[in-house]
């Protein structure tokens, strides 16, 4: 099965879509890690109000479809004077969504840091921020790494949602090409191959990291 001439001509367009998907994945992952840290921090606070905020954030993000979240963000941004920016909306929505899962991953691995370590840090005169940076983070992040890579693969799989707010990432680029060439099968298989190209190394990496963490 050879590629149609028109589809061949559209390859650069699909390539640009792939790059946009990558950019979106990276930016949303950054938002997701920041939100995850925040969500984890809030859930582990002693004051009930912060804890409730943290839990509500996680529960809402995990209990509603990502596409609904994207629309909510997309229609809220104009009210803050940031309308008409699909990339910003997609990065925020997908990052916020994934952040809830990251918060749970971090919270589970937070158990590795024993109470004694925190007391030791305090005795050595480290304040909260320094304790978080030098004592908690290195251990928790290292232990979470395989799960985080996994989570970023899932994040990658939510990025096609951005096509509904007309961000020209891989799926939307594919749709534009299909509308012009009527070659749905070929274009969609190329789009699928694009996702596999990013996702398969990630899943392999996650599996390797997982295996490394479980010594025989």
């Amino acid at each position, binding site marked *: 099965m050879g590629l149609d001439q028109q589809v061949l001509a559209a390859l650069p367009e699909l390539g640009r879509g792939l790059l946009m998907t990558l950019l979106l994945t990276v930016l949303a992952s950054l938002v997701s890690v920041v939100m995850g840290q925040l969500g984890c921090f809030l859930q582990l606070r002693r004051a009930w109000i912060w804890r409730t905020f943290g839990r509500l954030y996680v529960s809402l993000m995990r*209990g509603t479809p990502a596409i609904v979240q994207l629309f909510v963000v997309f229609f809220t941004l104009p009210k803050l004077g940031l309308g008409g920016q699909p990339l910003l909306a997609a990065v925020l929505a997908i990052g916020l969504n994934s952040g809830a899962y990251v918060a749970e991953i971090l919270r589970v691995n937070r158990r590795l840091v024993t109470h004694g370590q925190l007391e030791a840090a305090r005795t050595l005169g480290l304040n909260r921020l320094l304790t978080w940076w030098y004592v908690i983070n290195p251990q928790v992040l290292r232990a979470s790494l395989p799960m985080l890579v996994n989570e970023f693969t899932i994040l990658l799989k939510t990025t096609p*949602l951005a096509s509904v707010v007309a961000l020209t990432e891989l799926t939307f680029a594919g749709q534009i090409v299909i509308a012009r060439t009527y070659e749905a099968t070929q274009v969609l*298989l190329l789009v699928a191959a694009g996702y*596999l190209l990013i996702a398969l190394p990630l899943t392999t990496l996650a599996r390797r990291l997982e295996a490394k963490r479980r010594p025989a």
Partner: protein
Amino acid sequence: MDWQAIIDALPSLGEGMAATLQLCAMAAICSLLWGALMAAALMRASRFWQRLLRVYSNITLALPLLVVIYLLYFVLPEYDITLSSPVVGVLALTLYYAPYIAQVIRAAIEALPKGQWEACRVLGLSRREQLRDVVLPQTLPQMLSPLVGLMIGLIKDSALLSIVSVQEFMYAAKQAISETYAPLEIYLTVALCYWLLNSLLDWLARHFEFRMTRYRRGMQHE
């Protein structure tokens, strides 16, 4: 907040919710059956089939659901298979969730100590008795919470089907928005409904898990 818009949209949203529930129930049943079948095949079938199923699992693990939906929606008609869009929706969700379900079922069954199967053989239990009296009572509570987690994922992902105009909850919401011009209000209502539904499922799962594992807590008191 435009409360009037929400009130006006409620009847059509209700219909949409009913459609979503129906759709998800169908997809849940189909994916559980297909997933159970896959789990059985992964444990017992010949190596060729196992390898084939593993390739299929790996591909679904890496592909976005939206791409799977588009593939089914656009590619099948090119081979003269025309299915209505709800059927394509159920098919997509089934194909997408079955590998995850198969993994959960397989992990739970393989976690049973080998001695139990041998004991069943020694006691001369039939296959049916084995499953009903020994395997399922121990594996069901283990599978319950991950399976319900997957079902919640399925419900959330069913919202994507509105993109290929399956008339479910999200689709009803879009319809309502085109009439009321209040997107934020309607989408917040939609989010609330999904959240309540999924929270209810989550709560039910925890409740039943607690009840199904009563026998374990009973033993601790001895």
